[in-house]
């Protein structure tokens, strides 16, 4: 049972990292639907770098760097060129899926390194996640920079006349978002499930993306959502641990996605939509181009 809970919390940490990055992205008004792709890149290149250097640190740094690069790429398309952000994000996802399969194929198999030391039965990543949640909550709601980020996401022209560089803030957000997604991917492939396989993420990035919407762009709620989905995910992998013999595991594996659909239906209700609409960054997904 403890094992089950610990694994759930580890899974939750991965959702938290990817989700926090996307949350900051979106608070700044940029939608990156391609975080699955960024995570795949981070996971694959992190895996390769770690295996070749026999160092987790090198692996994690590689993941952060590729995440940064892809975040900036998405930023270039959506901020500088002002193209449709969904199209750019989808492009990054498809590129991630294809390229990582091609690059990672020779590395198929286990990582073959010593496990990362745990602290109190949990990896350092889980604690890092919790610290980041609190830090980002403080940053977004209690600091000047946070106010600037939120303003840029709500109404960039207001931010501009208040003397804030919309472009700089948005680039900062996408850079952070990309790094977090890359890092989340590496935590998956280096710690949570250290085996490289074709499309091993199976939609974790998309779940993180959905979590951001459910969280009403609040890191604390995001953390709660990540825990819920971490448990659900774990349940879908080993249902026999908790509910032995009940339903096939293929049914359980569907559960997180079914819950996602349920939540989507829930948030489409009028009651929720008014509250949700108030929290949603108003300029989300809209390029800011000056004439």
């Amino acid at each position, binding site marked *: 049972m403890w094992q089950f809970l610990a694994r759930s919390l580890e899974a939750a940490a991965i959702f938290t990292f990817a989700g926090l990055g996307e949350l900051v992205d979106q608070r700044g008004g940029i939608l990156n639907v391609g975080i699955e792709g960024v995570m795949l890149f981070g996971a694959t290149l992190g895996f390769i770098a770690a295996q070749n250097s026999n160092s987790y640190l090198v692996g994690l740094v590689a993941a952060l760097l590729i995440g940064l690069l892809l975040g900036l790429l998405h930023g270039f398309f959506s901020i500088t060129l002002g193209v449709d952000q969904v199209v750019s994000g989808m492009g990054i996802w498809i590129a991630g899926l294809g390229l990582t399969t091609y690059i990672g194929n020779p590395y198929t198999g286990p990582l073959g390194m010593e496990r990362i030391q745990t602290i109190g039965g949990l990896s350092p990543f889980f604690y890092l996640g919790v610290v980041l949640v609190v830090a980002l909550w403080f940053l977004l709601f209690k600091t000047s920079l946070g106010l600037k980020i939120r303003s840029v996401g*709500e109404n960039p022209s207001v931010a501009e*006349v*208040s003397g804030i560089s919309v472009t700089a803030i948005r680039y900062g957000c996408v850079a952070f978002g990309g790094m977090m997604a890359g890092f989340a991917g590496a935590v998956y492939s280096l710690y949570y499930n250290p085996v490289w396989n074709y499309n091993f993420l199976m939609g974790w990035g998309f779940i993180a993306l959905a979590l951001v919407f459910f969280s009403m762009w609040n890191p604390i709620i995001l953390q709660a959502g990540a825990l819920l989905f971490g448990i659900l995910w774990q349940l879908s992998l080993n249902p026999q641990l908790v509910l032995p013999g009940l339903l096939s595991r293929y049914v359980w594996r569907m559960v997180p996605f079914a819950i996602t659909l349920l939540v989507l239906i829930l948030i489409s209700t009028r009651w929720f939509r008014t509250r949700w609409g108030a929290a949603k960054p108003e300029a989300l997904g809209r390029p800011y181009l000056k004439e």
Partner: protein
Amino acid sequence: MQQQPPVSTDKGPLPSLEELLADVKPGETVLEMRGVTKRFADVVANDRIDFDLRAGEIHAVLGENGAGKTTLMNILFRLLHPDEGEIYIRGHRVHLRSPVDAINLGIGMVHQHRKLVAAHTVIENIVLGHPKAGRVLNLKRAEEEVKALSERYGFKVDLRARVWQLSEGEKQAVEILKALYRGARILILDEPTTALTPLETERLLESMVNMARQGLAVVPFITHKLPMVLAVSDRVTVLRGGQVVAQLNTRDADEQLLARLMVGREVLFDIQRPQVEPGPIVLQVEHLSALNDKGVPALENVSFSIRQGEILGIAGVSGNGQRELAEVLAGMRPARNGRIRFDGRDITHAPIRERWRLGIGYIPAERTEVGSIGDFTLVENVLLNFYFDDELVKRGVLDYRRARELTRHLIDEYGIAAPGEDARGRQLSGGNLQKVILARVLARHPRLLLAALPTQGLDIGATEFVRKKILEAKTQGSAVLLISEDLDEVLMLSDRIAAIYEGRIMGIVPAEKARREQIGAMIAGISEEASS
């Protein structure tokens, strides 16, 4: 917060604002613009304009749409770069690089379209981008400072409220406070009274005088609210066609003179309301309710009727359900409760096209979003109201020849300034586009005309024209529902006036008995019984 490099002048970097304005006496010139010229493609928006500001004065800039006043003020605030011309502050020539430079020099601007983050609190909006904000926000200290400012100049705003909860007047106060908190000594106000109730307008004018008394220079720039100019300003600069046509002391001016300077010809202020014997009831609305886009009730239990040959004016401040009312009547928004009868027939759930066929003509408030299609030619735009008529469609095929004739005829009759009937909608100015929309609706001789904000944003000439045409429709036997945020317009045109507040009709008053103050109180939510 990084330190902004100082603004450069021809004599080296400019001293700090405090030093610069330390010993200013009221009446002294603080700012000068000399020979400012700005061209957009082949249009000269500002033609060698000279303009100056004195400490402690309220200096109105007056002009019609397109006269160049917005351009001039945007240059002063450095949203636009002038092609030629110089700006001097207390004799120092300054080169502004961005609005941030202007702000640092003590120039603040309050835009007509609110520049506030609706989801944030008032205080968050005020400290946004403020150099003193610090890394970790100290909102308590900021609140105290802003409170002191509001008391000094007589503003009342709840600093913890979210901006979307505020009225237009309060939002404006927030913008002014934000500018003052940033240290503005020169305050530019863009059409400051447009969305305000009469009461809020009065309060704003008081605050403006208050600010000027304490050494600030205040520059409201305005289209046609002449009474306001006369009430508070010390000096007026009148622009026409991008040039200064007059600069005078307000005490030497009157309404007629200013209007003539602004328009370039005599203007009729009082339109004679023709008396028409009202006919049978055309539109009967009973207990109508509807929701707005956010799912919140926007109309509640609205009842009224309009007779043939009668204009019912709906007076109200923006966002009190007028838009939803027009949309429900036009068929674009479902009614939640209640009934709409047209010539006795229940049309509550009738589709939009059927309503057009029955004789309802709709002039939407959003003339470029809903009223017309910018990429369509004028012929096609006219066809939008005729494509379902047997006269112009033969077995599903449009009769372009006749549509073209009709459009050409309308262009002549309404004096629409357009290159031709094949011009695109977006090539036309707001006034001319509105004429096209009006013309195509009136060409159907509607039994009921729904006119939502028909003159909003139009200059004096076009406004006069649209008003005349609405009265003409009435004399020709249309029933007219006039929705307007301009109280004077409602009083001028309507036979009966209904005041709307938060989706409810506060009372319906016949024009002969309507007093401006009474209607003004009703649209601010004070019920008829209480006010009389």
